[in-house]
């Protein structure tokens, strides 16, 4: 009996003694499908992954496919389903509570990613030349994000490195001039260090030059803008695409497209557009309904405005014999989408202006329904060569008045295969002022529904002038207050950061 007890106790002791002998990792659990920062930034592959993380932020907010909605904060189109409350904003009701957070949050998420990359890449043991190229890409992207903020809000807070803590992040905003100066510094570094090659997904020298030209346009530094745009033109890396205007916006023909200078890229099915994608949102829901006013902007095929004498405009057949870009941009009432089975595709809701956006819709993917969500991957273009030509024309005309290079730039766009519009009437548009009007017209048409109009109209100071004659589908006149040239900071942001002061007139 006794020995047995001893036995049992012995065994118990042995077992208990075994317990603590085990390895120390029992409570050390690390995430299995993410990377811990401590072990990162060691190789070129790590750095490239970090850089890719910055690019990923291009898919957020108005940098991704929602960029197209920016045209609904202009005289181009109506925000049919109130995605971003632009219906209210275009009635002049703009306050810290009703402006989409995308204007503020998405660029700062991009800036955070770029800052985090730039803060960490410095110490990474990789080839110096490569490091400079990667840094140039990140700084280009950072400039792109900041430029968006500058266009939306004017001066904002600048973080050149990531704030180390919540408290460090609460600082004053810089002025718009300081911000634009910083953006130029960024772009100068980018231009110096980015490869001068065609665009395939990574930012290239031309991308940074186009953006810098745009910054100069905003600053009305016409000479510099013309110089920058001219440098892109003479470098010859980019060309107008002659494979069909509408194909510029469709995935298969966007690959290695000589016209695209910088875009936000997507790839189906693993990296499609966010939300439901524009095939559903624009194609099915008809979310962007162009106004009649925009439709009327398109010339007759003979190059005359529809109101011009001898234009041949037929009010009974208003969409015939028009600039071909009209029907490549806008779905007009007698132009149904036909499903593969021959039936007429129905939008989910009535089109409130009678029109809906067609540009960027891949009609081979009809019928548009939610099964197309993972298949929607059109790249959203930020800069393309036609834009550079238009920037050049605008800047050059402002700087020196009309000259042959200005007309040539415009005519090359108009004579694109498939567009085949006659050259600019040099007799009619013979002065700086006349030609300015025409360039603005051409810009509206060529870049229509691509998300440029809001910033263009603000830059030209024409928002109120262009909105006032229009009414929304509910019959309310559109309005744009002077103060709305800059957006108000979100109320929550002012509450969290007492250093930030509200833009004037919103106080």
């Amino acid at each position: 009996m006794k020995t047995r007890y001893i036995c049992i106790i012995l065994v118990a002791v042995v077992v208990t003694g075994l317990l603590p002998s085990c390895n120390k990792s029992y409570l050390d659990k690390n995430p299995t499908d993410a990377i811990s920062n401590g072990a990162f930034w060691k190789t070129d592959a790590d750095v490239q992954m970090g850089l890719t993380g910055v690019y990923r932020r291009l898919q957020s907010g108005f940098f991704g496919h929602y960029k197209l909605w920016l045209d609904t904060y202009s005289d181009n189109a109506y925000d049919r389903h109130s995605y971003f409350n632009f219906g209210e904003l275009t009635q002049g009701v703009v306050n810290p509570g009703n402006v989409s957070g995308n204007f503020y949050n998405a660029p700062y998420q991009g800036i955070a990613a770029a800052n985090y990359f730039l803060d960490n890449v410095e110490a990474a043991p990789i080839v110096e030349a490569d490091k400079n190229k990667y840094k140039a890409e990140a700084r280009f992207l950072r400039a792109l994000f900041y430029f968006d903020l500058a266009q939306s809000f004017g001066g904002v807070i600048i973080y050149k490195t990531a704030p180390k803590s919540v408290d460090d992040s609460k600082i004053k905003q810089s002025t718009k001039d300081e911000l634009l100066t910083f953006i130029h510094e960024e772009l100068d570094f980018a231009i110096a260090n980015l490869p001068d090659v065609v665009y395939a997904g990574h930012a290239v020298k031309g991308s940074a030059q186009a953006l810098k030209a745009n910054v100069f346009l905003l600053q009305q530094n016409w000479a510099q803008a013309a110089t920058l745009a001219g440098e892109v033109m003479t470098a010859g890396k980019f060309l107008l695409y002659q494979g069909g205007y509408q194909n510029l916006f469709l995935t298969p023909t966007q690959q290695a497209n000589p016209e695209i200078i910088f875009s936000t890229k997507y790839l189906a099915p693993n990296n499609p557009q966010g939300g439901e994608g524009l095939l559903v949102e624009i194609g099915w829901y008809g979310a962007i309904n162009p106004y009649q006013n925009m439709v009327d902007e398109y010339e007759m095929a003979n190059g005359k405005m529809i109101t011009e004498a001898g234009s041949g405009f037929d009010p009974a057949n208003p969409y015939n014999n028009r600039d071909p870009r009209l029907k490549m941009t806008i779905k007009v009432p007698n132009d149904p989408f036909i499903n593969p089975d021959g039936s007429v595709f129905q939008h989910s809701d009535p089109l409130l202006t009678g029109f809906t956006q067609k540009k960027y819709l891949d009609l081979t993917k009809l019928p548009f329904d939610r099964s197309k969500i993972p298949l929607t991957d059109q790249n959203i273009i930020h800069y393309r060569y036609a834009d550079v030509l238009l920037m050049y024309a605008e800047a050059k005309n402002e700087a020196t008045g009309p000259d042959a290079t200005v007309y040539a730039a415009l005519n090359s766009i108009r004579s694109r295969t498939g567009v085949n519009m006659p050259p600019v009437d040099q007799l009619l548009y013979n002065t700086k002022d006349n030609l300015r009007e025409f360039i603005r017209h051409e810009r509206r048409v060529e870049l229509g529904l691509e998300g440029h109009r809001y910033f263009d109209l603000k830059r030209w100071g024409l928002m109120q002038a262009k909105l006032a004659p229009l009414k929304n589908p509910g019959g309310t006149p559109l309005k744009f207050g002077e103060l709305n040239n800059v957006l108000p900071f979100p109320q929550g942001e002012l509450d969290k950061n007492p250093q930030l002061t509200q833009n004037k007139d919103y106080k």
Partner: protein
Amino acid sequence: MKNPFTNGVIKHWLACSLVIAFMTLNAQETKAQNIINGRVNNSSGEPLVSATINNKRSKKATATNSTGEFSIAANMGDVLEISFAGMRTQEVAVNGPGAITVTLNASDAIEDEVIVVGYGTQKKINLSGSVATVSGKTIAQRPTPNIQNLLQGRVAGLDVVQSTGEPGRDNGALRIRGLGSYGASSSPLILVDGVIGSINNLSPQDIESVTVLKDAASASIYGARAANGVILITTKKGKAGKNVIDYNGSWSTSEATAYPDLITNSVTYMEMYNQANARSGRALQYTQAQIDLYKNNPNSEQYPNFNWLDYVLGKGPIQNHHLGFSGGSDKTTYNLSMNYLDQNSITKGYLYKRYNALLDLATQVHKRVKVSTNINFSFQDAKAPWLVNDDLLLLAYASAPTFKPFLPDGSGRATNRDFAGNTSGNRSVEEVYNTGGQFTKTYNVNAQAFAEVDVIQGLKWLSKAAVTFYNQDFKNRQFASPSYAYQPNAGGVYTQVANGNPTYLGLRQTSTRNITKTFYSTLTYSKTFAVDHTLNALAGYEQQNNVSTNLDGARYDFPNNTIMELNGSTGLNQTTGGGSSDWALQSVFGRINYQYKEKYFLEGNIRRDGTSRVDPKYRWGTFSGGSVAWKISGENFLKENVSWVSDLKLRASYGTLGNQEIGNYPYQEILSLTSYPYTGLNSGALLTRLVEKNLRWEKTAVTNFGLDLELFKGLFGATVDLYKKNTTDILAQRADLPSSVGLTAPTVNAGAMVNTGIEVELRHQHSIGEFTYGASVLFHKYKNEVTKVLAPTLGTFEVGQPYNNYFLYVWDGIFQSQEEIDKSPKQPSSGVLKPGDLKIKDISGNGTVGPEDRVRYSRFPDYNYSFNLNAGWKGFSVTAFFQGVYGQDVQVGDWGYDPFFQGSAPPTKFLNAWTPANPSNTIPAVYLRGYSGVSGYASTYFLQDASYLRLKNLYLSYTFPQNIVKKFASQGLIVYLSGDNLVTWTQYEGNDPERAGSGRFAQFPQLRIYTAGVSIKF
């Protein structure tokens, strides 16, 4: 605890256990023994079948046969322990070779009830903490499909809210003593036989008892997991004695408890819709010509007045079968059971089947060593439409009465709107039924093996190894199916209009697997010193880890609608994904329990937990609790003078607990993996959140004062507990992080909240001759108060107030005229007010209704209560169980509440809505959601009182007398009828008031269930 432990421990332990077993088995009992015969009766002389007779010295046991007789080997002087469920256990000494007759008396529940507590059992009467129990019998009385919901109204302080009657998705939310946290989980820890397990693995008949550890002193033995209380579920074990076969079958039909009356007259609907559009300044929905079609052909097939809710909500049959085998010899006992549940929904598109099995096997391998295993298994096979719950039901709300589900031409083609050109509401339900479904197969296994060793007198060693395995295979298959406008076009042709499209076409499949491994080992020691001092001590070690993995894939290109496997597709545009996460917990714990003369009780619990979820620097934490009790009724002055006080005990306790449900890796700075397609897809890494490294678990301290009272030996009883539960270090996001940082805010330990409450349980049980009756009442009231907030939000989230108040303008009637508008305080509406709009109260009286006029309303109920009435006469018995919530406000809206939201018909009360001719002061003029005069701001117009009292269950049964059932060799036969949710008293309009909280008015209804059942034993 410098050296943490591994899984290897389990292997060592198993090996060692075998060694011990082998060594100890060598000893033989050699003494000669006699065979003692006997018989066990109840107090009326009837034999008790399967009573257990246990020789306390030899540890051998046997059971009585069908005539109540037994025989067992025993020596002179041995003590036999005779026990029988529901009877008071007796001990009889063997004084001679003659037969023994033992009469067992019905147990005095108060004196003898032993309940399960953390890592052990205790006599209920000796408890010093706040612990409540529910017997399996009570639970099984409500034959409803979901076990979790059966706890509703059974324990004071445990509030259960069932949010839906959807088959297989009707798990209730359990809260012990209010909302414990707003940062981490507020759900209690649920343990099945001591190990994390799925409650749905069990059928109600398999449950022996449920114990709820409410205060920190009782729960602190579970440390960092116990902040929200602990629910211990004990399954039925086999008993030595005759083998019993037990069958229980029930057949039910279910229907919706309530759903609103919506306007179903098409002309009224169309005209009212136009009025609402006009009021909001929008284009009219219907032309006069369209309305006239319905007016001129009233209620015809082509121009119907269709009630969609009546169409969608029907009856759902349910059946349940339970078959059990149990019994055993003196050495080995077993309990084996199987359960099959088959539940149809009250809507189309669902079928839920649940298969349960339970195996419990225990063997005395040596007189000092008992090994056992307990395995329960469930397989749930659920089919559901691809839109479920309120997402499905709201489709019925959003369908206009102007069309029926299928075209009037009898072609069987589904419809989704009336006129092709009109804005439609939403999909129609038939489209959803016809375009696929989701199929969920869930497997759960809780398996455990354990050994108990009587090391020496009073010292027991128990070790348990357990695996909880969960596997779910989920498929969501969707395909297109054309649907049409109900009215033909001008050419008389029905046109196809897309609206009911699925969210994608194809198959998405997700496989999820979750394994929790638990090992624990405890030593318990029990000794009585100098007669009056009893000491119980427990020491233990536990470790557990969990790994969960998932794998998902989708393909979109299928040749037909019936293929249900990914390989049936070409793989064009296929996607895949997968991930995993893990956590581990390691702990030591102990308990000391001391009592003096069964009058004074002292107990202390302590646990030290280390968790993988917290930074190594802060990983280990100690939780402890203590309780004291004084049984006044044990004092002589009371015993002698007031003998009718059978039990009077005062209790007090205090303890601290942790909540480690804070996510798996909350403290680690991690880069999310992402991708971006420069040309092909490239991997990327991205920091998305700021991280606070010194993050820790939340802590909860509970102070409890209790009183137990029994008068006249159970005639009246009461239990009262007062508690204060103080949760600190609640996880909260640094809400003051500016968006300009571009990252999500770090989570920090910042908040605090207090719940103060009272729980009352009153009992009465009496019998007069053969008539017995009883009543019990449970009551739970608590106050929730936020005591610390990182970033307060005025009105909804601030110190000194309940968490997450409603903060609303106070609706005060309807504007009757322009004059009234003009002379009233300026209203919060941003639009131009019209007569028929809501009138909002100017609380501050400053002439303008502004933000300062908003009023706080709590989301928490004033109190929860339930009562149970029972009566029995001979074989008949009836139980009525009522359950209610008082003072529960919910904020609702949308479908069925806001007229014409997505085209939904308004409730019929809008027939009396304000019009110039009908100056209602309770129903505003018909409006559209978003209309500034009603829903441009949040007001009490949307706040509804969801208080209710309902007859949760009525149960009638008849137990056939023994002499009848014996004729067909049965040992018992019960037939019963049961009704669930039979009657509801509420002010809540139109729908069922028992709902998960605020949100959509449209809900998947609760079920009223009528059941007939039979229970038979052989």
